């Protein structure tokens, strides 16, 4: 069982655990001198505690089967400690693994039971899990390397000769579309955080119409959007649509001086980006 004595002798502070902007860091920061984002990025790089453990093992070319549990536990705890000091939100799985490691460690330190009684190595379950996870990790890498449609290979699609007939386009009917909408709305309701407000279509419709006008003319006087024939309801709908568009940073209202006419213009000038994006 490999207890790395050098590691134990070495004072904690001499172990640079990170290099930030080229500066080796030997101290867990008392203040937030590692940008917490950096550690979050680092933590994000791992798919969980098993992944982090595999990384630690691999970094030192350790043999997984004779897992030097003390060494690994110490390093793992160091990361955890750092994360907590930075008050990063740490997934529960990481803490659970810390507990598992501590438990294995304490088992290892206990005197071996009397000969004849074949007790399982306390590390074996963790070793098995690490091996299993590593296999799927490799499998994932291999799947990623397979020639893939639209990345490595492309479908051949030859146009049909024009003389006969055009290839039919799929047909849909309205109920089908409304059904799809109902489902997506009901699904969205399951996420408490998403709000599909009960908005009459009239406001959304009006928002689109305003934008269409602004597509043709860049600069339109505020009053022109209001049509007295639509009555009070129409005026309100238009007004709310304009407010929504301002709030959504889609349009801007401009006025050269107090009491001067108000103009409406698109917040973004022209389609600067690809339209199909």
């Amino acid at each position: 069982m490999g207890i790395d004595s050098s590691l134990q002798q070495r004072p904690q502070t001499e172990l640079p655990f990170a290099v930030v902007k080229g500066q080796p860091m030997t101290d867990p920061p008392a203040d937030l001198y590692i940008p917490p984002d950096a550690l979050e990025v680092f933590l994000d790089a791992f798919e969980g505690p098993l992944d982090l453990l595999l990384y630690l093992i691999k970094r030192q070319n350790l043999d997984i089967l004779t897992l030097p549990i003390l060494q690994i536990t110490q390093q793992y705890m160091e990361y955890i400690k750092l994360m907590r000091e930075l008050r990063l939100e740490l997934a529960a799985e990481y803490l659970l693994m810390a507990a598992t490691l501590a438990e294995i460690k304490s088992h290892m330190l206990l005197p071996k039971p009397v000969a004849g009684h074949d007790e399982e190595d306390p590390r074996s379950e963790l070793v098995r899990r690490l091996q299993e996870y590593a296999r799927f990790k490799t499998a994932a890498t291999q799947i990623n390397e397979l020639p893939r449609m639209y990345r490595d290979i492309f479908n051949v699609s030859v146009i049909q000769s024009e003389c006969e007939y055009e290839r039919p386009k799929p047909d849909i009917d309205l109920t089908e579309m409304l059904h799809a909408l109902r489902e997506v709305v009901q699904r969205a309701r399951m996420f408490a955080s998403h709000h599909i407000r009960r908005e009459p279509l009239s406001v959304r419709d009006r928002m689109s119409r305003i934008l269409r006008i602004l597509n043709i003319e860049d600069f339109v006087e505020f009053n022109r959007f209001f049509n007295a024939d639509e009555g009070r309801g129409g005026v309100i709908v238009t007004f709310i649509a304009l407010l929504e568009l301002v709030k959504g940073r889609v349009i801007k209202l401009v006025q050269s001086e107090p009491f001067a006419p108000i103009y409406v213009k698109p917040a973004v000038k022209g389609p600067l980006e690809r339209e199909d994006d």
Partner: protein
Amino acid sequence: MRDTQIKRIIEAALMAADTALGISHLLRLFEPDAEKPTHEQIKKAITVLQEECKDRGIELRRVASGYRYQTCSDVQPWVARLWQEKPPRYSRALLETLSLIIYRQPVARGEIEQVRGVSVSSHIIKTLLEREWIRVIGHKEVPGRPALYGSTKQFLDYFNLQSLHELPDLAELAGTDQFRLDTPAYPELDLPEPEEDSKIHLRVVTDSG
């Protein structure tokens, strides 16, 4: 680059593209390469590819916007049966995306993704744009300047609607009793008849003296 390789690349590109490609477009495919083929080399490759189509079921034709492969008209009766048998259908993802664009317009792709919980493929947006059921009607002034999509007249025509108001309200669709995610934002704002007890009192002064 050897002529065979140029020819292979041009063949693959013309076969994979869904529009005809002009020679200048084909030249651009080699843009980043150290060794670029000349205009003449491309032309020559196309001529060879055209000759290779002899006795085959497809041909490489020159049309107004460039070159494209197409099926020979004499085999068309058989090829057309591909679609007679199974009319093409749109995916669920496309229908959901379309319905969200209709009901949430003007809407950016990100908002659709938020509601659906999955990313919206560009292919879907492209299909809807090509069908002219949606179009870009503006841009949001946030980083990336995302496009805002809205419905078109062609959409209304296709579904035989006079206006969007003929569509049922979202609340009705989802069943009013259970659909209470949020306080109704504009409960009283249903055109054309606003209810009398409207909470919003708004007077628009169009001509202030």
